[in-house]
C-alpha cells in the first residue's frame, strides 16, 4: 500500500511522519504547482471551491507517482468540505484510476468508530508505536507553529529582504528530515535560534500589526493564497494568523473526541455581529476580527476561496465590524484565476492605508511612512 493525502500548508511534515511511523509507505504529491491546479480544474466541477480543485490535482499527481491509497477527512456539514471525499472519489474513478479512499469522519464524541477506521487503514501495530507516532506528529505540529510565530515577527524587521523566508525553507526541510522526537526538538530549537540570529532593524517605530483571518485551507496554503503572509511581512507588517494547526487540533480534534463542554469564547466575541455558527470558519473570521480590533491591530485581511459559503456570510458582516470598531478590513477572494500581481497591488495599497492611518492617529511620524 502506498498512501497519499492532499497538501495543506506544511501539514505534509507532521502527517507524513505519523503515517511513516505507523509503518506505512507514504507517497507525497509533489508541491502544488500550476500543473496541479490545471489538472484539478480540468476535472472538477466548475463551481466547486478552490480547495477541492487543488486536492484533485494533488491526488492525480500522487497517483502518477505510484500512490494507491488516499486518506481524506470527512464532515457533517453544513460546509461543502464534508462531501469533498465522495466527489473526489467519483472524479478519480471517472478518470479510470485504481485506488482506495479512506474518508475519516470527525469523532463527534465517539472515538470507537474512528479507531476502527484507522485500524483498518493501518493494520496491526503495537500501541507503543502508535503513541510514539502521535507524539512525534504533535511535536512537529507544535514545532512548526513555534517557528512560524517567530518568523512573522522577524520578517518585517529583517535587514535583508527575503532572508527569513529562505531560512524558514531550510529549517522546515530539517524538521521534515528529523525521524525521532529528540531530533525534531533539536531541529526546532536550532531553527528558532537561527531565526533569532537574522540581522534585524532596531530603529524606527514598531511594524504595523495585521491579522490574517479566513478559511483554513486558504490561510494555511501559501500556494493558494499567493504567499499573502510572506508578502505582507516583506511589506513591513507583522502578521498574526488566526489559525495555527496546533490550535486547530486542540480545539477541533481533541475537543471533539472528549466533547469538552465549555462556552465557546469565539461565539461570545462574534455575538454582537454574528449570532450563530455558520459552518467552516465563518464565525471564527468574525470573532478574530473583533479580537484583533480590541487588541489594537492596524488591520485585518480576510482570505477565502471563491464561492465559499461560510466566508461569504463573514464577508457580508465584516464591513460593520470594521466600521464600528474602527479597524481596516480587506477581503481577498482566491480562485484558479487569481494572479499574484493583483494581490501584490492590493496588499501594497492596504499597507499604505494602514501606515497613513497610524500617522493620522499620531502613532508614528510622517517620515516613517516612506521608510517602509
Amino acid at each position: 500500500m502506498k498512501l497519499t493525502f492532499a497538501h495543506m500548508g506544511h501539514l505534509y511534515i507532521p502527517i507524513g511522519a505519523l503515517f511513516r511511523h505507523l509503518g506505512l509507505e507514504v507517497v507525497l504529491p509533489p508541491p502544488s504547482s500550476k500543473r496541479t491546479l490545471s489538472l484539478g480544474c480540468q476535472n472538477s466541477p466548475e463551481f466547486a471551491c478552490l480547495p477541492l480543485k487543488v486536492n484533485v490535482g494533488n491526488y492525480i499527481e500522487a497517483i502518477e507517482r505510484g500512490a494507491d491509497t488516499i486518506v481524506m477527512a470527512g464532515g457533517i456539514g453544513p460546509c461543502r468540505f464534508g462531501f469533498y471525499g465522495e466527489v473526489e472519489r467519483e472524479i478519480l474513478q471517472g478518470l479510470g484510476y485504481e485506488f482506495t479512499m479512506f474518508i475519516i469522519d470527525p469523532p463527534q464524541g465517539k472515538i470507537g468508530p474512528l479507531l476502527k477506521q484507522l485500524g483498518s487503514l493501518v493494520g496491526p501495530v503495537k500501541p507503543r508505536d502508535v503513541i510514539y507516532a502521535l507524539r512525534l506528529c504533535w511535536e512537529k505540529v507544535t514545532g512548526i507553529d513555534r517557528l512560524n510565530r517567530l518568523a512573522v515577527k522577524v520578517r518585517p524587521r529583517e535587514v535583508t529582504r527575503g532572508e527569513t523566508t529562505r531560512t524558514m525553507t531550510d529549517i522546515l526541510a530539517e524538521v521534515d528530515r528529523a525521524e525521532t522526537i529528540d531530533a525534531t526538538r533539536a531541529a526546532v530549537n536550532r531553527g528558532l535560534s537561527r531565526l533569532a540570529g537574522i540581522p534585524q532593524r532596531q530603529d524606527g517605530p514598531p511594524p504595523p500589526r495585521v491579522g490574517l483571518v479566513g478559511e483554513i485551507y486558504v490561510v494555511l496554503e501559501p500556494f493558494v493564497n499567493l504567499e499573502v503572509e510572506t508578502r505582507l511581512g516583506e511589506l513591513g507588517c507583522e502578521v498574526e494568523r488566526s489559525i495555527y494547526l496546533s490550535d486547530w487540533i486542540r480545539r477541533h480534534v481533541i475537543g471533539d473526541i472528549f466533547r469538552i463542554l465549555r462556552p465557546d469564547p469565539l461565539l461570545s466575541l462574534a455575538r454582537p455581529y454574528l449570532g450563530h455558527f455558520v459552518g467552516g470558519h465563518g464565525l471564527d473570521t468574525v470573532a478574530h476580527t473583533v479580537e484583533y480590533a480590541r487588541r489594537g491591530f492596524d488591520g485585518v485581511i480576510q482570505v477565502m476561496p471563491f464561492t465559499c459559503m461560510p466566508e461569504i456570510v463573514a464577508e457580508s458582516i465584516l464591513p460593520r465590524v470594521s466600521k464600528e470598531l474602527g479597524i481596516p478590513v480587506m477581503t481577498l477572494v482566491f480562485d484558479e484565476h487569481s494572479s499574484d500581481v493583483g494581490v501584490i497591488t492590493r496588499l501594497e495599497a492596504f499597507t499604505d492605508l494602514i501606515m497613513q492611518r497610524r500617522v493620522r492617529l499620531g502613532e508614528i511620524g510622517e517620515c516613517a511612512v516612506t521608510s517602509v
Partner: protein
Amino acid sequence: MDMQAHGVDLYMTVGIPRALLYYYYYPMWATFFKELGADVVVSRETNKGLLDQGVRLAVDEACMPVKVFFGHVASLLDSADRIFVPRLVSVERRAFICPKFMGLPDMIRAAMPADGRLIDPCIDLSKNEREFHSEIMRTGSIFTRSRVAIHKAYQKSKVVLRRFKDLLVAGNMPESAISLSLAGHDGAYEGYTGEFGEVAAANQDAILSGPDDTISVGILGHPYLIYDSYASMSILSRLRDAGCRVITCDMLPDEVVEKEAQNLPRWLFWTLGRRILGAAFHFLHSRSVDGCLHITAFGCGLDSIVGELIEREAKRSGDIPLMSITLDEHTGEAGVVTRVEAFMDMLRRRKSA
C-alpha cells in the same frame, strides 16, 4: 378585529420577504402572525428594481437568490413595522439548509438600517425540538403575553402548512397553493380536513406512472429559484406554454426522494440538496420523465457538489437527457430561451423517433 379576544396586546405590521423559503413556509408564517393579531404584508414579486437594490446591498460573492432576498427585505423597510428574517439553521435532524441561511439576520443587519426591526427566531431542528419551541414562544411574545394564544397560533399554523403541502403534491405551483391554503376570508384560518389528500394521491399516481404522449420534464432546483419567475426567467411557464408537463422535485413524495438519496455512500447533510438529488435519481432511474432540467444559481455551493453527483449518475444511467442552466443577475433572457427551446426540440425528436 377584537384584539382583546385574541389576547393581543400590540398591533403591528409584519413584512415577509417573497424570497428564499417563502416558497415552502409562507402559509405557516403568515397564519402564525395573523393569529397573533398582526397585519401581514408580503413584498411584491421580484422585479428588476428589487434585484438591482439587492445587488447593491449584498456582497458580490453572494448568490443571486440571496441578493434577491436582500432586495425584498429592503423593500419592506418602508411598509412594515417588523420584518420576518428567520435564522434558518435546520428543518430536520442532522441536516442543514445552506450556511448563508444561518447568517441571514446578521447579514441583513450589516447591510441596511434594520436594527431592532427584524423578527429573527433561530429555526434549528437539527438536534431537538425543545429549543425550537422556546424560539416560537420568544417570537410570539413580541405580540402577546399569553402563552396559550401563542401555542394556539402555532398549532393553527401547522395545520395550514399541512394543507399547503397537500396542495403542492396535488400539483399546484407554490403561488397558487399559497392562495388556496389561505382561502378563508382575508386569509383567515379555516382549518383543514384533509380534502386535498385524494387529489394529491391521484396526482402522485400520475407523476410516478411515467411518460405518456405529452413531453414531461423533471425540474431540479432550489424552490426560491425555480418558482421566482423573474429570477428564473419564467422557465417553468415557458415549458408549460410549449406544451410540456412540468414536474418539479417538490411534487415527489418524501419517501421516494429519501429512498433515492440513500444511494449515496454518505448522508447528504443539506435538506434541499437531498431533495434535488433524490428527485434527480428518481427521474433518471424510473425514466418517468423525458428529460431533466437543472436550474442553478451561479456560485451555489450546494449545487456545485449535488450537480456534479447528478451529472455523473446521468452519464452512468444513460438514457435521460439532462441539461443544466446557470443563472445570475446578468443572464440575458434570449440565451436562456434559445437553450430551453433547443432542449425541447431535442426531447420532441427523441419522443417521435
